[in-house]
């Protein structure tokens, strides 16, 4: 199974304040531990929401709002993608993350396409295929989505 671990934003992450070298070193050690155990598949930190945007959908209308966004606790500051045998194992790993000061992280199981059951019509699968091909081309050219 795979889990996405979502790190919630904080005042500091939103202000673009980089963690001090001690925390960076601890985080590096933690990531190394995850990688050594073969459970870490991917992980990234995100830039503050001031560098991002939101798109709202209503009928054919698309409303784009630039960041920053105010409700800090609802924002995402980074993520891991890990492989674990169970939710309990994912939680046990993530309890070891070197956070403090009220930081909250969320552990969510990644749904497989099969989990969508009948909702995944052939059209949806076809779309998924095209997206996948594009991602493959990007991977080949070394770009990141």
């Amino acid at each position, binding site marked *: *199974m795979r889990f996405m671990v979502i790190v919630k934003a904080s005042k500091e992450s939103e202000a673009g304040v980089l963690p001090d070298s001690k925390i960076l070193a601890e985080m590096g050690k933690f990531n190394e531990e995850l*990688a*050594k*155990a*073969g*459970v870490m*598949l*991917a992980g990234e930190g995100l830039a503050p929401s001031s560098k991002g945007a939101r798109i709202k959908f209503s009928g054919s209308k698309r409303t784009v709002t630039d960041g920053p966004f105010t409700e800090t606790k609802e924002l995402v500051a980074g993520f891991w*993608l890990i*492989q674990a*045998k*169970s939710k*309990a*194992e994912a*939680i*046990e*790993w993530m309890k070891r993350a070197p956070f403090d000061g009220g930081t909250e992280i969320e552990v969510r199981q990644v749904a*497989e*396409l*099969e989990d969508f059951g009948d909702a995944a019509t052939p059209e949806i*699968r*076809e779309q*998924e*295929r*095209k*997206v*996948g*091909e594009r*991602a*493959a*081309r990007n*991977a*080949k050219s070394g770009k990141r989505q």
Partner: protein
Amino acid sequence: MTVSETHGAIDAVWRIESAKVIAGLARITGDVGLAEDLAQDALLAALEQWPESGVPANPGAWLMQTAKHRAIDRLRRDKMAERKHEHVARELESQQERAVLDLDTALDDHVGDDLLSLIFTACHPVLSTEARVALTLRLLGGLTTDEIARAFLVSEATVAQRIVRAKRTLSDAKVPFEVPRGADLDARLSSVLDVLYLIFNEGYSATAGDDWVRPGLCEEALRLGRVLAGLAPDEADVHGLVALMEIQASRLRARVGPTGEPILLLDQDRGRWDHLLIRRGLAALERAEAAGRSGPYTLQAAIAACHARAGSADATDWGRIASLYAQLAALTPSPIVELNRAVAVAMAFGPAAGLTIVDGLRAEPALKNYHLLPAVRGDLLAKLGRRDEARVEFERAAKLTRNERERALMLERARQQASAAAH
């Protein structure tokens, strides 16, 4: 936390920590079987105490400490204690005297070598293949005998027996708990790689089932491969094996149709391939190729990568695949590798070129009853318009295969050839 939540947490801690704890204890006691028993004792103690006391802040260190206490108790009780035991007890006691806080650091210093020794011991050539697999999953993967039994579709008693016997064999053969060096290393390492790949394939060949264990075997073999790559980063073929498994695992979702029928590589919907795993696989392959001469797993990974890089089946670089198979055949000569090379050559340079190689394999005793030989030959003959000969080969392939779906497919192709020949 409820009792069942605590048990879930204990399972998770065991899964994360047990290999390190067993490896550390095996270094001290020199006996993998004893080390595992002690670690199990510590697990039982955790199951008794943690629901009351809560999961400790550093559960791995707690398990290690508890296991060491048990070791001292056990060695003291043992009236037949040999000198070795006294020595071990003394070493353990002197370690106890050191500050408990140092324990973690002390463990960290050794943990890499210990884990590596544990992998090499579990995959020791003195053991049967089944025993190596069971012991690896049990000691390195933290799987229970029940989980291993379900994954391999055998009874729990069989697996338990296998593990008990394996531990006894290691002890009787006085297999030292160490990382092999020098000339020994290559052969021992290839045993480890073969065991991991066998575990992977056991999961990969299963086509259905929502039970964790069978698809989980692929994940576990991959995980152990990544662990090994971290422990032995200079060994090129370890990265090669990881690359091969990552790329093959990327196709797990695409290789079975809606009714459970297998879908062949060239017919798969490439959009359903897992591009995260492909990226990881290609990165591992780069590390393998940078680390040194390509071993058999690196070459197989390079072949898998040719498919992974192709946006569509038509875009496959068959010329490169044919040349990689030639390198693989030179490294590990095998008629099956040669048959695969024939397919690649046919795709790259036309069916006649492939047929020449296949015809050279017809006298090969190892392929006498191998259904894919007539299946491939039939396919090439059909492409060359030699329909009668093709039909005979498809019928022969249908007779030889043990897979019902494949038999039906071969008979269908034979009929097509017959009716095309009649027109």
